[in-house]
Structures are given as structure tokens and as C-alpha cells.
């Protein structure tokens, strides 16, 4: 053990030097340095690390985490990372109680939690990094329609889910889809039956972008009763698959063979894609109270930016700015650096892993700076 600590100490010294060098080179040449830093930090040095860190939280990140843990094991074979998907709330709770070293959360910490984080982080603070950006697809089951996507504005979607539009060949839908033959099938809106970050982001989008057509407030629980619903993403997809004419919303990577809706942004219709999802994050401002360690994004759902897909879910990786144990500090830094790196984001992007949208290089620069600020207490 003593040997490990010594080695780790050396490494931490190296990383401080590296961070210093990084700051200089960042100022000098901006974007390019980030990639260098990521490769440098994600390179051979990681294979010397050992230790184990545990995470818990949002189930939205579960698949991506699985991918990251698997590939991280080949980068740093002696570091064990575990992730328990128990939901955002549970993850934050466990993190604040000191049960896990990092949490995955679909929502940023609230004020009360930030206060609790000070104690948990040995006088430091919580770090929040938007490392998982996932487009949410509006999926439908209409085998007879051969168009790639059905076009819809937020208003139309809101009316469908609120029960104001009940058949597929409604004039409102037809007007947005000229040349597409829509059947007179009844529309069955399907929602998540459990509390979910996907529902929260979806209703947030409808509330912000539908211009009053959505009379409910954004929440993780579906506000309408007497609806068809499914438990979890797979339950929802099964339900939509189970009946012709149904429409639902789910993590885009799980859409499978179902059709997906192209959203109206500005004057054009944008189908979901990784680039389009990353675009909206970059086009959105930071939330109130965000710092350079807490990179909380206030998503601009009404964006008119070209090619942006405003229906996305951001899941944060929450960590401490300070840890008690040197080995833990290094392991957390190494893992988060890997996740944020181009390679890590590519892993999660793969359709068979999570189909998420890779973060942009600008965001990576900021994320990396925040990760580098993690230290050991004392």
C-alpha cells in the first residue's frame, strides 16, 4: 500500500505540473490543447493507478457508464469502478452521505444539497459536469407510414399528449407533413409511469416551447391520469411497440425500429442526431449559480439555432473538489478525465452502448479544467 501511495504522490505532482502547463498552453492556443491534455491524461500514466471508486445515480447514464467502465478497465486495469443505477435522487443522497465517490444525476444539486456537499467534500465543494448528453426521441408506431420522420412542432406534440389531437390524419399534423399519407388511426399517447428525468425534460420542453398548448407544469411525474404508460424506458418502448398508432418519448438510442419525430426548430424540422443534441447544449446559457466547477446548463428549449435539437437530457457527473484519500482523488480524476475525453465520449456515442451525443471541444476544455482542480484534502 505504501508503495502505491508513493507512486500516486509522484503522479499527483506530475498532474499539478501538467495542469500548470495546460493553463499556459490553453491561454496560448485554445482548442487544440484540450485534446492534447485529454490524451496526455488518458495515456500511459493511468495504467499505473490503482484503487476502487463507486458511483451511483441516474439510470439514464447506466448504459454509457457500462461502456465507460468496460473500456476504462483497459486504460487503467487496476482501478475498479462500479456504478449502481438507483435513480438521480438516490445517487445524490448516497453521494452526500459519503457512500459513493461520485454520482450521476439528471438534475443539478439544489441549494440544500450544495450545503451538504461542503461537509461531504471535506470543506470543498461539489463539482458538476455535463458529461452525458442524450437526445430524447418522440417515437411512434405507424408501420404504414414510409416517411423517414413525421414533422411536428412542439405545439402539435403538446396537443397530442394532452389529448387535444386524437387521430393521426388530424389537419394540424397533415399541414406539417405535406406529401405524407397519414392513416386515420387513433393516437395513443404513452408516457412513463415512474418518476423519470426523461419525463421531466420532455415536459420541460413542452412547457417552454409549445406556447401555452401544454397546460401543465414540468415535472418528473406525468401530470395526466388515465393514460397508457410503461415502467422504465423499456416498458415504454414495449408499450409503444404493442399498439399501432401509439406515440411516446424515450432515450433516442432505444428508439429501435420505431419511427421518430423531427422537431420544428425555427422554420425547419430537425430529426434527432448526436450533433444536433450537442448543438443545443452549446447554444444554451449556463444556469444561475453555475461556476467553473459546476458547469450547470440552462437548456434553451425555444432555441432557433440552426440544426439544434432542443429535446435533450443532460445527466451530470457529480464529484467532490476534495477527497480524503490520495488514491481516491487520482482514481476519480482519471475516470472523469477518461469519460470527458474524446475517446470516452465516442464510446458512449456508439449505438450499441448509449447513443449519446459527444460533448463539444469547448465544453471539454471547461470540464477538464474542473476535473484538474480536484485535490486531496490537507
Amino acid at each position, binding site marked *: 500500500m505504501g508503495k502505491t501511495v508513493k507512486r500516486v504522490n509522484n503522479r499527483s505532482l506530475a498532474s499539478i505540473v501538467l495542469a500548470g502547463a495546460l493553463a499556459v498552453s490553453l491561454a496560448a492556443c485554445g482548442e487544440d490543447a484540450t485534446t492534447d491534455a485529454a490524451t496526455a491524461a488518458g495515456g500511459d500514466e493511468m495504467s499505473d493507478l490503482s484503487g476502487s471508486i463507486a458511483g451511483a445515480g441516474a439510470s439514464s447514464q447506466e448504459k454509457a457508464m457500462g461502456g465507460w467502465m468496460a473500456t476504462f478497465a483497459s486504460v487503467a486495469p487496476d482501478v475498479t469502478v462500479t456504478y449502481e443505477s438507483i435513480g438521480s435522487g438516490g445517487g445524490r443522497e448516497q453521494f452526500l452521505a459519503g457512500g459513493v465517490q461520485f454520482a450521476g444525476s439528471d438534475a443539478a444539486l439544489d441549494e440544500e444539497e450544495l450545503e451538504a456537499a461542503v461537509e461531504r467534500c471535506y470543506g470543498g465543494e461539489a463539482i458538476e459536469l455535463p458529461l452525458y448528453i442524450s437526445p430524447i426521441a418522440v417515437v411512434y408506431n405507424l408501420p404504414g407510414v414510409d416517411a423517414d420522420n413525421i414533422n411536428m412542432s412542439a405545439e402539435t406534440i403538446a396537443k397530442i399528449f394532452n389529448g387535444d389531437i386524437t387521430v393521426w390524419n388530424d389537419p394540424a399534423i397533415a399541414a406539417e407533413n405535406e406529401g405524407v399519407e397519414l392513416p386515420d388511426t387513433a393516437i395513443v399517447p404513452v408516457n412513463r*409511469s415512474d*418518476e423519470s428525468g426523461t419525463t421531466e425534460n420532455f415536459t420541460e420542453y413542452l412547457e417552454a416551447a409549445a406556447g401555452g398548448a401544454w397546460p401543465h407544469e414540468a415535472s418528473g411525474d406525468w401530470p395526466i391520469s*388515465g393514460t397508457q*404508460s*410503461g415502467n422504465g424506458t423499456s416498458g415504454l418502448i414495449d*408499450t409503444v411497440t404493442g399498439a399501432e398508432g*401509439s406515440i411516446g418519448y424515450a432515450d433516442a438510442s432505444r428508439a429501435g425500429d420505431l419511427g421518430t419525430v423531427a422537431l420544428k426548430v425555427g422554420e425547419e424540422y430537425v430529426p434527432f442526431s448526436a450533433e444536433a443534441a450537442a448543438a443545443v447544449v452549446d447554444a444554451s446559457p449556463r444556469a444561475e449559480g453555475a461556476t467553473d466547477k459546476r458547469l450547470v446548463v440552462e437548456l434553451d428549449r425555444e432555441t432557433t439555432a440552426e440544426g439544434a435539437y432542443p429535446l435533450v437530457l443532460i445527466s451530470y457527473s457529480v464529484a467532490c473538489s476534495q477527497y480524503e484519500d490520495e488514491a481516491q482523488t487520482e482514481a476519480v480524476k482519471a475516470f472523469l478525465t477518461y469519460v470527458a475525453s474524446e475517446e470516452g465520449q465516442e464510446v458512449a456515442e456508439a449505438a450499441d452502448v448509449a447513443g449519446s451525443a459527444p460533448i463539444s471541444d469547448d465544453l471539454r476544455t471547461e470540464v477538464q479544467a474542473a476535473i484538474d482542480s480536484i485535490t486531496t484534502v490537507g
Partner: protein
Amino acid sequence: MAVLSPPKVGGRPDQQEPRARRSKGGLAGRLFEYLSVGAGLLILVTLAAVAGFLVLRAWPALTASPEELQEISWFGSSTFLGYVGPLIFGTLLASLLALLIAVPLAVGIALFISHYAPRRLAQSLGYVIDLLAAIPSVVYGLWGALWLAPTLDPAFRWMTDFLGWIPLFEGYQPPAKNVLTASIVLAVMILPIITAVAREVFLQAPRLHEEAALALGATRWEMVRMAVLPFGRSGVISASMLGLGRALGETMAVLMILSPGFLYSFFLLKPGQHQSIAANIASKFPEASGLSVSALIATGLALFVITLAVNMFARWIISRRSEFSGAN
């Protein structure tokens, strides 16, 4: 949950013996007595511990003010009773429907095995039924959600088209994720336990009664009706209560099949009308923290009380009818 056992023929032979004679069995005898008394007490202690845990953890939610309760995002009501009421209703409705489907079937199967089937067939059929009980409920859930629901779809369409004037069958909306589908799956799940117990009871019907009935010129059906069914009645009731207990607490299957809702509703074919307590806990617990955990545990307490009440009610029925049952 208290477990009811099928009635035994005659009392235990040693029941009438004086206590003094039993303790003369030496060290081994006394040890065994302590062990069995201990095991008996352990059940009571476990039950008390579960009840204690539930009350303790549910207390914050039971005593919380309406304002505090309304802060829980999914708490659509200002009182705890307002929240748990529809859940109790949904749980009981799904379980009773399941019982309504399963009991006649189970009695039929049990009678077939005990009195109609050739011996070899009866034996293998008995094994198959017992095997059904060994299938995990999550598998039943998968089966119900992925196979049964689409299969029932045309039948439900027909029902709502032609029987829709009966409010029960009004307003079916595909896919078939409604309380009736859930009840059918529950019925299949509780079928084996009811069948197994009922079969055992029917097999114990006194041979002499049966032969007497046949000797008086009764047909086989009349013999079953006069000698076997009255004898087995209390056994069938306890079997049903065992099944009801399982149906009340069933989680995964309901969770996977039902589109939940929180209403007092008798629309069996509409989605989003009902939810069972256990499935609701399973669905909400992963994201719950603080007071919402207490609220969920409080609904668990309600389920515990219901199950206890159901079992005591069944006991009462059995004791009231025991003089007719021929079991004593």
C-alpha cells in the same frame, strides 16, 4: 402474513395427554420442546418486528402535515388516506378479480386430479401444477406484457365494441395494459397454490362417505357434491386466502403489465385507472428519498394490515362453517 394450513383429519394424537407425562422424555425431549416452542415464538417475533419496522418508518408520513405531504411530487392528495385509498382499491380489485378467475378453475383441476383422472395422469398433472408455482413472478410479468397483452387485444376490442354498454367494459384502449390483463396473469400465478391445497384436501375426503354416497346410488358428480365438496369447503377457502395473499402482494407482474393510475374506477379495460400497492412501491422507491420513502412504507403498512385482515376474515369464515364442513 399469517399462513393458514389445510384442516387435518382428527386432532394431534398427543393433544389430550397430560403435560407431566410429556416432560418425562428426558433431555432430548425437553430440548426438542424448547426448540419447537422457540420456532413458534420466532414467527410471532418476526411478525411483530415487521409490524414495528413498518410503523416506525411510516410514522413521519402518517403524522406529516398536508403541506409537507404535498411537497412529494407524486403525492396527488393532501392526506395520506387520500393517496392510499385508490391504491388499496386497485390492489383489492385486481386480487379479487384474479380470485374470481382462479378459484373455479383450481377447484376443477383439483377435483379432476383427485377424483376423475387416471392415477398416472393425476400424478404427472400434479407435478406440472406444482411446477407452475415455481416460475418467478418476473417471468409471468414478461409473459403477460409481451405475449398475453397482444393476444388479448382482439378479445378486448370485441368486448368494448359489443359489451361496451356495460360500464365495466367501456373504453378499451390498446395495448391491453389494463387491470383485467393483470388479473388474468395474477390468476395464473395463484392457480397452482390453490390447486395444490385443494387437491390435498379433496384427497382426504373420507373414503367411507364417498363409498356410502355411491352405494346409495349417487352418480360420481353427486358423490363429489355431497361428500367431497362439503368436506373440502374450508380447505378451499384457506387455499383461496393463500392465493389472495400472493395476489395482494404481487409486484413484478403487475408492475410490468399495468398502465398505472390512481382512481376509484370500475373500468376494467381502460388504461391508467388502477395501481397495486406493491407495484407502486417498486416503481416509486428507486427515486424516493426522505419523506417520500416514509409515505411508500406507510402504503406498505396498509398492505400489511389488509393482508392480515383478509387472513383473519378467512379464519373467521372457516370457524363459522366448520360444523358443516365435515372436517372435524
